[in-house]
């Protein structure tokens, strides 16, 4: 039973680590953000499961209810969801701008682009370079 009791945590950890892996390893900038979203979603679940009470009710006070789930994690996660989506939005805006000015959103390519420009003409505004090869 002990391992079954922790099964939900382990499943969540798998999701978390999948997200983390995407954010670190995948070179497409969009996919990194997807990874972060995934990571955050898993964390939300973690919090909510902390607040869960078996055989209890949604924390809306009603007549006759004995037990409620803990409302505090819900509150925290409501905040965290909004914060998460705000981060995603900003990240996406950055990706769009990067695509506009570099013509690519692949990390490996971007790194080589930046180096290339630096070597060619180190002393001028880099923005002057043509960005659509």
């Amino acid at each position, binding site marked *: 039973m002990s391992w079954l009791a922790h099964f939900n945590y382990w499943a969540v950890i798998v999701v978390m680590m999948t997200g983390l892996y995407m954010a670190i390893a995948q070179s497409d900038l969009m996919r990194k953000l997807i990874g972060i979203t995934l990571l955050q979603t898993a964390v939300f679940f973690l919090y909510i499961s*902390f607040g869960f009470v078996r055989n209890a009710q949604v924390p809306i006070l009603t007549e006759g209810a004995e037990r409620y789930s803990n409302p505090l994690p819900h509150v925290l996660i409501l905040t965290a969801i909004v914060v998460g989506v705000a981060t995603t939005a900003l990240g996406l805006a950055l990706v769009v701008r990067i695509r506009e000015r570099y013509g690519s959103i692949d990390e490996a390519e971007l790194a080589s682009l930046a180096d290339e420009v630096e070597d060619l003409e180190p002393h001028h505004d880099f923005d002057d370079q043509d960005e659509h090869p």
Partner: protein
Amino acid sequence: MISLLLLLFLAITAIAIVRSRDTLTAVMLTGLSSLISACLFLLLDAADVAFTEAAVGAGISTLLMLAALHAVAPVRPQPRRVAWPALIVVLLCGGLLAYGTLDLPPFGAAENPVHQHVGNHYLEQTEREIGVPNVVTAVLASYRGFDTLGEVVVVFTAGLAVLLLIGRPRRKDEERDAR
């Protein structure tokens, strides 16, 4: 039991996302995973969170991603390569978390410390102190109202930053880039 199945499904979705080659698929699957977790939240008695996750996580977030994907398209398919250093870091991190969850209080038990201290106060006192039946709303708006204010500021900050990044015509940049 349903929740366990859903969780398994969520994990499978996550794996599918990481293995997907096409970013559009990944985005759609992310939306799906948000929906699954919204269902899970509902099963775990978190109605407000479930609703928000469905609306914001599965809805707005997916929409934003689709819009961004449209703006940056075409995106080349992701090569299937395993980045070993990252994998090792991730496995270590996951191992640590798994280790850490071993000593967590039993899942769903009413005697857990979480339910004894502050949380209990909210449940017992909200009716008297706030007078709103929905405890989540009470905590959100009053007990921890400052967090909510902070949340609004976060949204404002992100909105402002996004607007400044892509919201207005950027003639200067375009001139610069065109040269």
